């Protein structure tokens, strides 16, 4: 039986989107989505961890005994999170200074464990990698959308902190060159934790409305 890769993509990006439909991994989604740059970086790291852990779990799935499957999955996930954390400190130190706490917490993002447990430990390697990548991309898109909306409405800026991504000694750009500033101070509530829930609730409503009218 050939694997339905288009189905996997549709599931990850829309039909079973981890954030918008399964409502998994909401802690980092809501906590880090204060600026687009922070949200995007966390989304990319999550995408990497999901794909890598799905790959490794799928590789060893025939040897995973039911009694030790969960601890082993957590171990694999924690390994990739640690590697990603170190990589972030290596290449994007100042970004890590801002979101480092939540990078470590990706271990507890239920999306990652859910995909390892419900998909990667039962499916062939290639399908598992595609599934991890698509679910990760689905999460990344939602966190980008949410953090973009919150940054614009809450702070009246976009791309704040983008200069931190580039090495100042090579590129010589500062935030002043990159940040788009809108002509208002922003609604404080949107940046605060309740604002995260409210904005996310609006996104959910929009998604449900779209699905009903498809």
């Amino acid at each position, binding site marked *: 039986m050939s694997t339905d890769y288009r189905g996997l993509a549709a599931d990850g990006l829309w039909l079973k989107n981890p954030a918008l439909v399964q409502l998994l991994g909401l802690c980092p989604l809501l906590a880090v989505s*204060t600026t687009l740059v922070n949200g995007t970086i966390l989304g990319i790291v999550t995408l990497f961890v999901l794909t890598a852990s799905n790959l490794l779990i799928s590789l060893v799935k025939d040897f995973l*005994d039911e009694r030790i499957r969960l601890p082993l999955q957590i171990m694999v996930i*924690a*390994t990739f999170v640690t590697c990603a954390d170190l990589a972030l400190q*290596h290449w994007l130190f100042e970004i890590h200074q801002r979101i480092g706490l939540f990078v470590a917490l990706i271990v507890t993002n239920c999306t990652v464990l859910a995909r390892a447990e419900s998909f990667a430990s039962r499916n062939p390697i290639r399908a598992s990698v595609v599934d991890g990548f698509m679910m990760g991309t689905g999460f990344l898109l939602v966190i980008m959308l949410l953090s973009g909306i919150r940054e614009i409405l809450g702070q009246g800026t976009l791309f704040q*902190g983008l200069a931190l991504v580039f090495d100042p000694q090579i590129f010589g750009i500062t935030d002043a060159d990159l940040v788009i500033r809108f002509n208002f101070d922003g609604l404080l509530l949107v*940046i605060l934790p309740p604002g995260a829930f409210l904005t996310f609730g609006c996104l959910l409503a929009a998604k449900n409305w779209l699905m009903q009218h498809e």
Partner: protein
Amino acid sequence: MSSHKKPLITFIVLAAFCGLLVSMSNLLSRDRILENQIRFAQKQLLEIANDPQTELLEIEADVYQLRSGGEITGVVFRQSTSKGYNGNISFWLGVNTEGEILGVRVISHKETPGLGDKIETSVSDWIHTFAGKSLENLQEGDWAVKKNGGVFDQFSGATITPAAVIEGVETGLVHFESRSSIWAGSTEQLIDPTTETLNTGENNEY
């Protein structure tokens, strides 16, 4: 029997592989991360010194002397406060030879984004209002936000965070005024900066 052995072998092999991955990444990134940490600290310190020619000399853990042409122009030290909204706020506090603040830079904090994070230079200019202030040119009651009768601006919607930083800075100044030996002692023995000043730092132990 073999049904018990199989999971154990999987466990050992996978754990070994994961351990290998983590130690490899640690090995590959360790030096660069350490370098990043130092560079990040130095960047903040030089911002405080406001002069790229300044040399930095660590005389004890988290205490740096700023020197220009061999002469001490100031001291920067690490200070922290737990009076913030959420957890510790730690920052560098730079003072010149007259006891005036050269600058303050937040190293780490967990204050509310969009509210308390105005203490960061990337978000707001607020932290720059400390420059030039000293225990002499401000009264004791002035070390507070305007709402509480002081001279510092509060943030709209947040007074706890700025109040904590202000108090932390004042405490830092008082603390280091009483330890003026750090300056005086090392000014006299400026012969070989690297070794001599390191020794002054350790003198406390004897």
